[in-house]
């Protein structure tokens, strides 16, 4: 249930993940249309493909994802997932094992140790939730970009074994736009969430636009991807995607 099959078929992604290993997918969301609703899809798609997952979150605790996926019928204890707490460097060893992070991202001078740990992991689907939080923390654009490129280089080095990078970030103002433009230039796919231009609706949460990133043209099968626009409705246990005007609730 955690895999959004309509979205996968619209993007022609049969496994739910991008078809070519080593690629980068950017999820851009706004205030009323957060892209984090896609994270369960990528996590469960990786689990179904027997791929390990590394989830780096700057915005939420591990408990948050555990609860959401449990409601979707996925028990994270049964899957290979490593959670990196990047929200705040705290000593979390007192937490129960089910919700205890596997790594805590500390201050910037401790990042080399993190990248060493990341390189030691088996080729995985790396998901970064809230990359723009590095800007909120007062770090510069260069720092945020260097974090992204280091993660991307680790993923690309394990690309043949099926590693992929998924980045979710808030893009809604001038402060985060430079970072978003830079990441788009280093991405293969861009999934952009936005509110309905026609206004609020109780049956449609927003619109998803899938377009090619700047690096997609370098892939051999780049022509198989077609830009897509879908509407979606978020519920407690899933996200329903449908073509504009084809909502099951309305029809």
């Amino acid at each position, binding site marked *: 249930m955690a895999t959004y099959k309509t979205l996968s078929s619209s993007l022609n992604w049969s496994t739910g993940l991008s078809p070519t290993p080593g690629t980068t997918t950017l999820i851009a969301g706004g*205030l*009323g249309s957060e892209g984090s*609703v896609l994270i*369960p899809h990528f996590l469960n798609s990786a689990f179904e493909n027997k791929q390990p997952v590394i989830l780096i979150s700057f*915005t*939420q*605790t591990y*408990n*948050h994802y555990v*609860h*959401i996926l449990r*409601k979707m019928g996925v028990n994270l204890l049964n899957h290979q997932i490593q959670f990196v707490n990047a*929200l*705040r460097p*705290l*000593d*979390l060893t*007192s*937490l129960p094992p089910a919700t205890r992070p596997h790594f805590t991202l500390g201050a910037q001078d401790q990042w080399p140790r993190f990248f060493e740990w990341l390189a030691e992991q088996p080729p995985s689907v790396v998901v970064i939730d809230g990359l723009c*939080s590095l*800007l*909120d*923390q*007062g770090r510069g654009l260069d720092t945020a970009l260097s974090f992204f490129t280091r993660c991307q280089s680790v993923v690309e080095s394990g690309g043949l074994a099926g590693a992929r990078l998924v980045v979710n970030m*808030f893009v*809604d*103002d*001038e*402060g*985060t736009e430079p970072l978003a433009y830079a990441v788009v230039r280093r991405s293969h796919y861009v999934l952009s969430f936005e509110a309905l231009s026609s*206004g*609020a*609706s*109780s*049956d449609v949460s927003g619109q998803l636009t899938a377009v090619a990133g700047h690096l997609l043209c370098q892939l051999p099968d780049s022509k198989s991807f077609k830009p897509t626009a879908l509407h979606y409705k*978020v*519920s*407690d*246990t899933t*996200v329903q995607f449908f073509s504009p005007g084809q909502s099951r609730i309305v029809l």
Partner: protein
Amino acid sequence: MSSFKKRVPASQPKPPPATRINPHSAQLLVSTGVPALDDVLGGGLPVGGVLLIEQDRQTGYSNTLLSYFASQAIAAGHKLCIVNADRDVNLASQLPGWAGVSRSAPESGTSTGAETEQGGAGDKMQIAWRYQNLPRVDGREADTQSHSEPSAGPPSTAATDTPYCENFDLSMRIPQKVIDRASVDIVDGDAIARGMSGTENKSGDMYRHVLEKISALIDDGFSSLKPLPPNAERNILRIELRSLGSGFWRSSDPNAILAFLHGLRGLLRYSYAACVISFPAYLYEEAGVRLPIVRRIEHLCDAVIELESFEGSNATPSSIVARQIKGEAASNSQEYHGFLHIHKLPRLNSLTASMGRLSILHTGGGSANNLAFRLRRKKFSIETYHLPIEGGVTERRVPAKEESNTPRLPSGAGCGSTPGRKDPLEF
């Protein structure tokens, strides 16, 4: 009433007083003090979450919401921390009281909710018993009813005796002795600013000082990462930040508020604390358009609401003063006082906000924009906005002068009776 009782293991920890659990996200909730606002938020403010109230322009309705939040902390026995930068805090004159406050307010960390029930029972007016269990947004009955829900966690004396949301009266005040007994910590922003200018003017970041203060408070018994000593009960820390981002919050970095909010979120997520922030969004405008940083501030908070008062939104200060002198505000006291806009709802442990299933006022989607508030003498309420009756209520009544000019029928003239003769049915 059913005799069924849920079997609960004795070793299960008791929830903190005056809290309930959201059955859809397993998230602990506390009340904001305004039942209608709790309803809009999906049952209350999640513990570990931040509610941002974008202040109304030139009026003080957001301060009323903050005073409700503080009064609820005292009524529930929670610890209260107020960080103030631009306004003196005088709890005895600013916080609304409730019936039986002088004898029912629990001391901090202890639950004397039984006294509250006794005090409230004496004042309670008995009406038709069959209506007592009907759902209501405002009122104490709905709150006490929810305490007995099986999904509200294990039955405990602390959670069931203390009401989830007290019924406050704006015309009353909390006695000083009750405030003295409560656990209240007031952080004076002016003192912090003076200390910054006196000793370490190099950074000048008031946000950092306040975050360190909050961190120390959380470490003092409100962290979820530290086990409690034996026989100790969990309590809730309520943090109230007034006018965050105004000029009184001094900082050399214009983006320091973003780092502050991100750090605050990281602290609260691993704590038994909830935070309400009032934010003067109208100060972040250029030519009537909000600056982009406001969107990032909203993004960093879990719930965002905005109060837009009718008096202050499109008025000059002189027109407001003139209106108050004429007394128009008093004559329009039955009307709404402004709109309540919902920009974001809490989504902790969930993909979507739970208000769609739990809220009476707000059902999601387009209904986010049809809420209004009104401030009465005793109560602040949030209601669904509707236009008044066409032509107004007063024009539908017969004016007093016309009523006196109409020829009065002789006494006893009625249907079927003859004028001038006494009606045999009259008594």
